């Protein structure tokens, strides 16, 4: 019986820890995550996290969700799901304690893995330096 209690407490603690560490789907502080269309008006005076999200979902920007799934909540209505080519974007802050390493990965993933399918967003100027910073801010928030 004691064993079960301990197990339950441990399980509960794990959930709390996971939630506080941001392992659950990430909510957006200022409300719902904007859709691509809403980004056109919202992004101008938004914080860097929302700006990063907008740059990440734009097909002409990062288009990150073409290959990655992201754990955000609530998922924008009618928004297509992410692809499964690349690892899901989850627990990013825990996986990348070093911000510079994450930024370098977005800037040019071929440095770490030459045969990666991930486009070198910075090196090939697919996304501006400013938007790469914004995307990294967004990534570290989810």
């Amino acid at each position, binding site marked *: 019986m004691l064993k079960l209690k301990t197990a339950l407490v441990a399980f509960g603690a794990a959930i709390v820890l996971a939630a506080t560490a941001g392992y659950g789907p990430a909510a957006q502080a200022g409300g719902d995550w904007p859709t691509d269309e809403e980004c056109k008006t919202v992004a101008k005076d938004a914080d860097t996290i929302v700006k990063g999200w907008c740059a990440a979902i734009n097909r002409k920007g990062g288009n990150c*969700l*073409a*290959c990655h799934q992201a754990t955000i909540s609530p998922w924008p209505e009618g928004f*297509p*799901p*992410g*692809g*499964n*080519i690349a690892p899901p974007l989850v627990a990013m802050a825990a996986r990348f304690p070093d911000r510079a390493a994450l930024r370098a990965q977005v800037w040019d993933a*071929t440095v770490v893995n030459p*045969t990666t*399918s991930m*486009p*070198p967003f910075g090196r*090939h*100027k*697919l996304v501006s330096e400013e938007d790469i910073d914004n995307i990294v801010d967004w990534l570290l928030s989810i």
Partner: protein
Amino acid sequence: MKKLVSLAVGMGMAVLTASTAQAISEAEINNDIAEFQGFFLKRFPGVALEDYVDGVNALPQYAHRRANWELMMDFPPYEPEMEKAEEEWSKAFANGKGFDDCNLAPANTYPVYDEASDDLRTLVADLNACLKANGEKPIKNVKRGKMARLIAHYKSQFNDEPMAVDFSAAGAQAWYEKGRQFYWAKRGQLNFSCANCHVQNAGNSIRGDVLSAGLGHGVGFPVYRTKWAVAGKPWGTMHRRYGGCNKQVRASPFKAQGTEYKALEYYEAIMNTGVPLKVPSQRQ
């Protein structure tokens, strides 16, 4: 000094390997085929070599959409177009001859390497050469429309024949190597090789779409594509598709029937050795 010598030796070795890498033997190509096909057969157990003829529709990751495609195939959208193709094929030239008199190779053996000109003969090139030889005007648009319909008509007579492209000549092997380099080299602003998507990520989802397997590419071409049909030009040859693919990775497309795409078509045809023809095909 010792360092410099070893550096020079190293460089000499590099040059040597680079120059020998240019030539590829028939045995190595056969090895490539086994490796390429083996990769997919292992990745998608239960999908047999001949199943790849259906392109993305053959993959288990596409199963949820296959029923839809099969329903469409009950009354294929290209059927009226194939009647038109037959009419165009049967129309006699001014000199009384016709396409049936053209000296064409079996459809499952294209592209054909021509030793005399050290060039690849595609079916497109052969049809235009035949028109010219008979005093007719060659067809200018080699990416869609009439040319695609004529090829569809000719190739459809060889359906179920397994691909069997010859690469025994040394010159042919050089063309193969050119195509292989193209297939595996990264290009465009997005930095994708053909293989990044159609080998490494075949069957994976890019947003809501499933990436097709490289095995099976080309055996259904020319295709009747729903996306192209919306714009009123449903037919496309391999080289039309290559151009579209290059644009999607934000690279400048090469010329249809130019050196690059001929070599790529040759490489893909050889990788599909043994896969049967199924022309035309519908693609989304």
